[in-house]
């Protein structure tokens, strides 16, 4: 190795040592635990083949808070490294990367939340937050419907015309700003994560000019995101609840993600129909928005129910009780949103349509409202972590 590169490698390391010494967190925080564990992992490295976390880790010798946030968000919680770990309990090293990173990851979402005071929303009970919010929204909608036309709300509409109960304009006026705010808030969080990480997490092993250029890195990060490569191990899946490998979690997440995207496509095509072509809802069962929504809704129900079932089977040693509410609350919210959506569709010509509409829209609005303070943000940070990985890690 050339003397100059060697020299740079050392310089980087020394800076990292100093940075770490200055910002050493107190013991027993998720950071301190992650730092302790990464030092052990970095001396072992048996898990390099499982996912991106370990190849990324080997680029560092010391792990400051920002590097750890990056690695924690890169972790997909596949648990391959836990079940393969010779240093897991009962070994005195007590290495447990998935659980430690799970907790650190959740803390990082609080740290990057925008606006800052909303960070406490993550710490609260997710199920409670979601359900209370959903009920509140439903009441608001029921109220407004009742005010408009009391007998009409409980009537059957032969064509299932829900806009007769809540006009299109009202829906857009309420949901639109909330959704845009959610996107903005998540964007601000992602921006903070990216900016803070970029300043300090230049790996020691990266040679000057060694960064992979933007586009290939972006495409690779997209590919990893859309295929969940990091939940596939070396092509055999991950450890859902035992030493045995399975693709269940990956496929269920695919159902959830692509189901969500199809529902989003349903809304988008519906909006396009409305404004571009003047075709107003409700649409026929075989129209694009309804097909997208139906398939997406079914996939979402299957995916979220399956993920919840897997979560219940998780070994105690891998659980983080404090995060249970946030994790299951989000899954429940997605499940209930899609389930009420499907019910609304199939009962839209009955007298229950008004009530179902209100409940469904209540869940939708809740979803939009809590989006930036829910587990949904994992998608933003995970993608950015993958992008950083592909930019920083030589292939």
């Amino acid at each position, binding site marked *: *190795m050339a003397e100059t590169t060697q020299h740079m490698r050392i310089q980087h390391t020394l800076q990292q040592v100093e940075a770490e010494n200055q910002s050493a967190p107190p013991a027993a925080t998720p950071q301190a635990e992650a730092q302790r564990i990464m*030092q052990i992992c970095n*001396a072992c490295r048996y898990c390099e083949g*499982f996912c991106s976390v370990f190849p990324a880790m080997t680029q560092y010798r010391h792990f400051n808070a920002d590097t750890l946030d990056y690695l924690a968000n890169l972790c997909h919680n596949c648990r*391959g*490294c836990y*079940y393969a770990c010779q240093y897991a309990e009962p070994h*005195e090293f007590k290495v447990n990367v998935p659980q430690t990173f799970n907790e650190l990851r959740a803390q990082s979402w609080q740290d990057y939340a925008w606006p800052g005071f909303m960070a406490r929303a993550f710490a609260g009970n997710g199920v409670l937050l979601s359900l209370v919010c959903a009920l509140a929204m439903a009441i608001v909608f029921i109220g407004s419907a009742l005010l408009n036309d009391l007998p009409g709300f409980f009537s059957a509409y032969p064509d299932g015309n829900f806009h007769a109960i809540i006009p299109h304009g009202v829906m857009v006026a309420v949901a639109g700003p909330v959704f845009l705010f959610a996107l903005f808030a998540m964007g601000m969080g992602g921006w903070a994560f990216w900016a803070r990480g970029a300043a300090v997490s230049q790996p*020691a092993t990266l040679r000057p000019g060694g960064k992979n250029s933007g586009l290939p890195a972006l495409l690779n990060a997209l590919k990893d995101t859309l295929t969940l490569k990091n939940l596939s191990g070396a092509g055999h899946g991950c450890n859902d609840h035992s030493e045995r490998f399975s693709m269940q979690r990956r496929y269920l997440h695919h159902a959830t993600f692509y189901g969500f995207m199809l529902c989003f496509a349903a809304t988008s095509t519906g909006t396009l129909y409305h404004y571009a072509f003047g075709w107003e809802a409700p649409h026929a069962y075989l129209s694009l928005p309804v097909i997208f929504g139906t398939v997406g809704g079914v996939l979402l129900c299957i995916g979220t129910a399956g993920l919840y079932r897997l979560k219940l089977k998780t070994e105690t040693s891998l659980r983080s009780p404090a995060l249970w509410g946030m994790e299951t609350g989000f899954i429940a919210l997605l499940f209930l949103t899609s389930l009420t959506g499907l019910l609304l569709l199939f009962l839209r010509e009955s007298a229950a349509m008004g009530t179902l509409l209100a409940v469904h829209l209540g869940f939708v609005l809740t979803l939009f409202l809590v989006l930036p303070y829910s587990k949904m943000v994992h998608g933003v940070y995970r993608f950015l972590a993958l992008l950083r990985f592909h930019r920083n890690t030589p292939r």
Partner: protein
Amino acid sequence: MLDAADVVVIGGGNAALCAALTARAAGASVLLLEHAPRNVRGGNSRHTRNLRLAHDAPTSVLTDSYSVDEYYDDLLKVTAGHTCPALARQVLAASRTLQPWMEAHGVRFQPSLSGTLNLERTNAFFLGGGKALINAYYATAEDRGVHIEYECEALTLKLDGRHCTQVTVRQHEQTFDIACRAVVAASGGFQGNATWMREAWGERVDNFLIRGTPFNKGRILRDLRTQGCAMLGDDTQGHMVAIDGRAPKYDGGIATRLDCVPFSVVLNQQGQRFYDEGEDFWPKRYAIWGRLVAQQPQQVGYAIIDARSLALFMPSVFPPYKADTLADLAQQMGLDPIAMQHSIRSFNAACQPGAFDPDRLDGRATQGLSPNKTNWARPISEPPFYGYILRPGVTFTYLSLKVNERAQVMWPDDHPSDNIYAAGEIMAGNIMGQGYLAGLGMTIGTVFGRIAGQEAAQHG
């Protein structure tokens, strides 16, 4: 607990599992006895990471080719002839067929790990390491009907002449006799048996660390020796390397290695240097350093580097001691500061100018010291200073049951047992009677595990 099985396999590591899977596939009822609890099952295999395979052409994880002849030459180099040529060639030739068999039984491979230079051609790495391999074999064994008992220690074989009729075992304070048609001893060496180790190696062994499982008690190894089976090697032979002195007494595994020595000055407890730290690259010297440290007072060494060398080797599992002055570092590490500083000053004064290159034998040597450091001799002068404590770490013991090509345990008159077979570390000395070749232990265990399982099922 079953009271009988066609084949009883003693042990729960790689060789035992290969034997159990093979015997089961041949139609035998199989009982596997693992001394350890389930969550630390797998013997020393769970600390391994690869096995060495001969191959004629590149495979999914191995580059180029590695002929049986070249493999054999490598073996002769490390064992200095302490090998049985016929058995060695048998293992090396059979190693060519292992990868597909292992994959068919659930083992996954990966490209060689970073920091393991020059192994990508010869050694196939297990995805996730040895514990993942063990997990895969146990899952397959469960699926195929191998009966597995944990926390079950085999105590003795009941012999009728050269025929084993029963295995006596202990589980949860209760003792059972299990009738068998054949038995496979795959229960490893005795480095986990503190009493035996002290008996053989003296009290200094109390300062040694055992890199692997505490469950390798050598009970069956000793039992068969006592009953008169033929042995190879003696109790005092073991493989040791220099590892991090703060490692746990048992099961420290790979992470406790320390690669700092070539860039260090290494002192003993009196603050004196005792060997050429820069003799060669670390992978070629870590075993020698295990013995060197074992010969020092209190069996301990102190490796000192300065700021310039910190990033030149694999990160250590424990953070190094760190100080801005040598005196402070000495105090932290429990060394006499005056002796320590004197040694470092003498070393620094003996360093010569020249190019420093960690990636080759740079020939930058000290002059006038005894002993000299012959490569990478650069003054220890730039604070902060860092220190690591070295202790001998025992990898395995060499004492072995003598076996033949069918894995039968031999008797001193050169006749084989009827139905007693051995595989793995308990017989590895037949092939690797001295020294160490990375990945060969797992190859021996897999090849002989399969042979023992097949023979035990067919001829037991």
